[in-house]
């Protein structure tokens, strides 16, 4: 310490000033680069792109080193040797960060990337590099206890810049909602702003086209980065097209550039998605084609001829309660009556089916009444061709968990059908071959969940139904 005090003032000034000059010069150069070489959205040369693609290879190295610095500084409080290493790690991080920045810039400039995310990523990197250089300069003062706060503050700021820059980079590669896309419901509540955007929800575009574009295309053609001036993150942008013109021609899949590019051979230089990103599946392509052929509207709810699994997905059935205590009783019922209560599946909460098929003619209202105590667990009642009558509806209305009710071939007339209106879970009702009339089935129209109603061979049968059944 004493010998250091004796260093002449002039020499000290020379030693201190020269690194400051370097840092300020480098910072100005970094900050000016985006103005000198403007990211103009035009691709510039293969060499730049070739080198630029090593950006993702290199970038994780400086990240690791930068994160190591605060760890070493904190651990160094106990073991001073570690703190000595921090200076080296900090310098090594800068040595790697600068070429990483250069490669990243080559990638963006070479490939013609533009967009807010790219710009943010770039400025984040500039800030990070400057931050690192300042950290190196200010650290000796902190070690020498001359400046207690400047270095820690700057290091923290650099770490924040790193986090932010890294996130922007990730968004460029994977898409903006990459982190939050699979956020579970309870967590999502905490972040009300995140999550899939609605749009005209329920339309074919919103349900099937937009998610495909979002997952496969928006990383390069979105708000973050709009290559070739094309954005696919909203319906309007999609229809506007890019610098090569419209990519969707309503009604004409063959003329739609988007379809042309995704259906090229995967090795083709114009194949999309480019750069080895996951291609569209054949299903996804066929949905887009069908959607374009049908006029490519934002609102139409479905496309004729396209049936997508899960499209009409019925809500998962409500589990029934635990009936294990009743099992001995159920078995006794079967021995006595012959009608069976069979589990729908190995999962007890899927409920029971009331099955009468092998003793149907002797199963009447009285027998049905005996099953009433199991009603909360019965999800399907097969009463086809049994002797149940209209009087059974007083019992049936208590079977509130029924999802399917078979009454085909019974003698019911339907006068009591309104009593079923409390069955909110009923999706299937078969009244074929009964005497029900169009008046008596009218109350069923109010049951919104009832999607499968069969009236074949009844007075209520719609006329067109009969016409269709005979070729």
């Amino acid at each position, binding site marked *: 310490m004493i010998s250091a005090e004796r260093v002449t003032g002039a020499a000290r000034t020379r030693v201190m000033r020269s690194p400051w000059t370097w840092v300020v010069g480098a910072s100005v150069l970094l900050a000016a680069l985006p103005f000198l070489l403007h990211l103009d959205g035009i691709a510039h040369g293969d060499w730049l792109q070739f080198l630029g693609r090593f950006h993702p290879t290199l970038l994780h190295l400086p990240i690791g080193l930068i994160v190591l610095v605060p760890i070493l500084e904190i651990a160094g409080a106990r073991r001073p040797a570690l703190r000595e290493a921090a200076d080296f790690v900090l310098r090594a991080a800068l040595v790697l960060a600068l070429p990483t920045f250069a490669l990243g810039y080559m990638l963006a400039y070479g490939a013609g990337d533009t967009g807010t995310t790219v710009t943010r990523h770039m400025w984040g990197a500039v800030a990070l590099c400057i931050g690192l250089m300042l950290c190196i300069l200010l650290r000796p003062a902190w070690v020498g206890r001359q400046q207690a706060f400047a270095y820690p503050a700057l290091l923290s700021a650099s770490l924040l810049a790193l986090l932010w820059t890294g996130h922007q980079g990730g968004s460029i590669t994977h898409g903006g909602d990459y982190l939050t896309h699979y956020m579970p419901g309870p967590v999502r509540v905490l972040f009300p702003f995140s999550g899939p955007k609605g749009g005209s929800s329920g339309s074919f575009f919103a349900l099937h086209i937009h998610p495909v574009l979002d997952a496969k295309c928006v990383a390069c053609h979105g708000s973050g980065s709009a290559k070739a001036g094309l954005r696919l993150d909203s319906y309007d942008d999609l229809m506007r097209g890019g610098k090569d013109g419209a990519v969707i021609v309503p009604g004409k899949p063959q003329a739609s550039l988007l379809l042309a590019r995704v259906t090229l051979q995967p090795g083709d230089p114009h194949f999309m998605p480019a750069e080895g990103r996951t291609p569209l599946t*054949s*299903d996804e392509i066929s949905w887009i084609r069908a959607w374009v052929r049908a006029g490519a509207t934002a609102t139409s709810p479905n496309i*004729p*001829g396209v*049936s997508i*699994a899960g499209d009409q997905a019925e809500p998962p*059935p409500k589990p029934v309660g635990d009936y*294990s205590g009743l*099992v001995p009783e*159920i*078995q006794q019922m079967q021995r006595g009556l012959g009608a*069976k209560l*069979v*589990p*729908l*599946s*190995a*999962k*007890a909460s*899927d409920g029971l089916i009331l*099955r009468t*098929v*092998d003793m149907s003619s002797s199963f009447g209202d009285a027998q049905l009444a005996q099953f009433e105590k199991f009603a909360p667990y019965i999800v399907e009642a097969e009463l*086809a*061709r049994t002797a149940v009558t209209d009087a059974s509806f007083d019992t049936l209305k208590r079977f509130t968990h029924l999802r399917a009710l*078979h009454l*085909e071939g019974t003698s019911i007339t339907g006068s009591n059908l309104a009593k079923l209106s409390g069955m909110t879970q009923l999706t*299937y009702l*078969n009244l*074929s*071959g009964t005497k029900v009339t169009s008046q008596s089935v009218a109350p069923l129209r109010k049951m919104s969940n009832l999607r*499968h109603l*069969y009236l*074949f*061979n009844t007075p209520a049968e719609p006329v067109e*139904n*009969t016409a269709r*059944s*005979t*070729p």
Partner: protein
Amino acid sequence: MKQHPLCTDCERELDVTNLPIPTGLKQEWSAVETRRQFLGRSGKVLGWAALASLFGEAALRGSAFAADTKSPVTSPGRNNLGLPHFAPKAKRAIYLFMSGGPPQIDLLDYKPNLASQYNKDIPDSVRGNQQLTGMTAGQSRFPIAPSHWGFKQYGRTGTWVSDLLPYTAKMVDDLTIIKSTNTDAINHEPAIMFMNTGNMNPGKPCLGSWLAYGLGSMNDNLPTFIVLQTKTNPKENNQPVSSRLWSSGFLSSEYAGVGLRSGGDPVLYLADPDGIDREVRRRMLDAVEEINRQTQAEVGDPETNARIAQYEMAFRMQASVPELTDLSKEPQSTWDLYGPDAKQPGSFAYNCLLARRMAERGVRFTQIYKRGWDVHGDVVGVLPTLCQETDRACYALVTDLKRRGLLDDTLVVWAGEFGRTVYSQGGLSADNYGRDHHPRCFTTWMVGGGVRPGITYGETDDYSYNVVKDPVHARNFNATILACLGIDHNRLTYDFQGLDQRLTGPQPAYVIKGLLA
């Protein structure tokens, strides 16, 4: 001298009952178990005892429904396997088996580019190293035979269908057409075995038996698994169809398919002879059952139990089968739909109508065999007949199930054992050709509970020779059928010969998710 049923030792034939020894000793002998029985049983008992102690009372009670151990014989619908594994979309299935191998190129796999390649040789690059049958291996060339019939687009889906299938064309929006079905075998017997049992060698249980074993009966008065054979048309090239296709293999024989005859009485000797009423029959069966139970207690052969169950089933079928096959109460709309063929017992249309009636009555699995699709020659002459016999009936069955609300929980499958070649077998002329067996791709369809309506799955190349997209191997085809019925094909197993046997065999098989609704 008859051997003891369980004695496999040929040198020591023993029949205690014939030996000159006191009666008491004979009785004592019959009470003694054989060594094999003793070892087999004691091993199992120890295992079960260990398991029971591990699981405590829950194992004994069962999670959903425990086995009804008291009367395993009289309730074929017992559900002690804990199936279905998950909530099924289909409760039952109807399998329309087109034996012989329908030519996909002339029916549903439209190849518009072939017309311009008439009589050109199929490129070697397409044929690859495909094994040929003995029928065409000697041919010097493999000239391309475009389909003789035109194709049109139908339905909202715009599916291409041959002019031979005007009725099938009407329901394409409901069908799940699979163009990429493929199999391992190139000849009828191994191929039809493979489709039905998942193995080319006989001896494995077929799909229907696995379903009967796994899911049990819905109606105790009818067999769980019924097979209907269509009367053959002598003009067609009929390959034999034998009962080993609906055999239960190593499963108990009560799970085997019950064949109904295509003419006369559907089940022979089902009606009681004159002078024997139902009461007498019942008493007789009770006595036979008592004797069989004694035999079972003595010998311990599980096949005795199967026999008791079959006698009981036959007794119940005396009442249920006449009702099933009595079509006199069918409304006129039925005949309008199925056409006049349906009035001929044994016709494909008649069988389709029966299949619908069985579906209504809770038969778990009905398989209809239609032979004659083996069109090695004279495709132009024979194929229209085959289509005329089946097209309308298939449509009628699907439509009938649909309008009666049965298609929601019934899976209908249409498949043969393989497809046919694009090149002509024998001479190719401007107006006729033949087609040889082709295992690499063939077209099948499904409709109903569990499958996605209105799609065409998989693609073949321009020659309908190789699958180019989304192949569906026969194993995966079967796994997918099981999935529709709520069964995980990997978990429906039966321990036999040291292997957990399953329908899809030991090789990995996958449910084709793209086919499922």
